[in-house]
């Protein structure tokens, strides 16, 4: 069964034009799903809906067979425990006033997860490849790639079933990006992931399924291998052909 199902979801801000229309797709348990689109595609808005930060105007989102009810505090507490996120900008996603220990254990405290929070944080830091003594330091002492690792540690510390990532490697330098993509690959073996990105290369490297969004609608969805080899929609084709490639070896 699907861990998450999005059914005919639509959304608009205020009385404005619809940002999302008739969005339907599944996130099978254990899979990595990529939501790909350019600016104005509505992909970030869709992610906010999946996180329960906004409520769809129409349609519904099912998580583990149950409708996502962003208005119920009790439901959201259990939902947050099972669904976590990583954001784009490693410089703005960590509170500069807090030590790393406090940042990484925030979900544990807020969700009242029982157990030794420090030990759990140490385990999460080890999982993202950072030394344990980082926990006593402040965000400003880390590089962009390290900060993103810390953000990932925070996302996995409560052992969620689903991690949603919003352009989580776009702000990183190329050499750092490859390593963080590898880290996501490692982590995704243990959980389901939804990866929102404009970068088809990153999504191709990480995801087994791809959903292509354009101006608030799904234009194409399917297995990564199939979409890369045989894109059906003109938009997908132009997206793929626009990506600059490295010159072939002589």
């Amino acid at each position, binding site marked *: 069964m699907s861990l998450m199902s999005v059914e005919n979801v639509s959304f608009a801000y205020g009385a404005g034009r619809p940002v999302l229309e008739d969005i339907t797709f599944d996130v099978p348990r254990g899979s990595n799903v990529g939501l790909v689109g*350019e*600016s104005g595609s509505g992909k970030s808005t869709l992610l906010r809906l999946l996180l329960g930060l906004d409520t769809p105007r129409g349609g519904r989102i099912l998580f583990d067979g149950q409708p996502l009810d962003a208005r119920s505090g009790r439901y959201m507490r259990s939902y947050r425990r099972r669904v976590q996120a990583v954001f784009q900008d490693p410089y703005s996603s960590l509170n500069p006033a807090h030590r790393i220990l406090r940042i990484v254990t925030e979900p544990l405290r807020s969700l009242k997860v029982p157990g030794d929070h420090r030990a759990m944080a140490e385990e999460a830091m080890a999982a993202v490849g950072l030394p344990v003594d980082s926990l006593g330091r402040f965000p400003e002492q880390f590089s*962009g790639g390290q900060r993103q690792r810390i953000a990932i540690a925070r996302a996995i510390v409560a052992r969620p079933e689903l991690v949603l990532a919003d352009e989580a490697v776009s702000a990183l*330098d*190329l*050499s*750092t*990006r*490859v390593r963080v*993509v590898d880290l996501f690959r490692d982590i995704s073996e243990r959980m389901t992931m939804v990866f929102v990105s*404009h*970068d*088809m*290369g*990153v999504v*191709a*490297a990480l995801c087994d399924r791809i959903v292509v969004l354009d101006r608030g609608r799904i234009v194409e969805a399917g297995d*990564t*291998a199939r979409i*890369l*080899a045989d894109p059906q929609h003109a938009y997908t084709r*132009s*997206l*793929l*052909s*626009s*990506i*600059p*490639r*490295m*010159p*072939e*070896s*002589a």
Partner: protein
Amino acid sequence: MSDLLTVDGLTLATSNTRLVEDLSFSIAPGERFGLIGESGSGKSLTALAVTGLLPPAIRPSGSIRLGGTQVVGAPERALVRLRGDAVATVFQEPLTALDPLMPLGAQIAGPVRRRLKRSGDDASRGAVRREVMALLEQVRLPEPERLVGAYPHEVSGGQRQRVAIAMALACRPRLLIADEPTTALDVTTQAEIVQLINALVKELGLGLLFISHDLPVVGQVAERVMVMRQGRAVERGSTARVLTEPEDAYTHDLVDAARRFDSALEGRP
């Protein structure tokens, strides 16, 4: 043959750190040169140094000869003329590079009028307007009539970057510096801007200094490249050679990383 730009032993330093160290390269007229580097490599500072726009706290030493003029230590007055004449720059974010309160046509008209006046040509309203329209056409903007009256926020990111390129061309430079000109754009728009820059450089016989962290993009533009890391050049050579058979370990890492994503797109994760 005399080079358009010759940088020799350039070092950029503040009172306590060296940001760029002993950098040398040259660009011949009509040549497309790529500067590759990640954040902190000093590639954008190098571009600022070439146009004499370094912040006052950063002191250049060594030599930068641009169209026969020494930039290092030159008085601001000489630099102003140089910027209008020999070199023009296109930046990463067209939204901040354009004045939000001025119609696009008026922004391009500024440098056009200055150039016409300096060369003693007809700088009447009509002449300036004709030239502005010609520039808009040159950067392949649709509906130039409508665009001259539009404000930066009313057009798309790609169109803004085209206007920024038109402004750069307005002073008929011999060297165009493009500092991450495609980074802030969508992939489909990015491809169009790369094509446009390539076509214009060829048409006008410009020298191009193309700065980017994106290896495949540089690969589509430059004939020769230099790779920078932490203020130093680690590798240089023909683009084809550097991107296929890198010699330096760091360049090797970068090329491998770029190829990872490439092969993922070919369905070989």
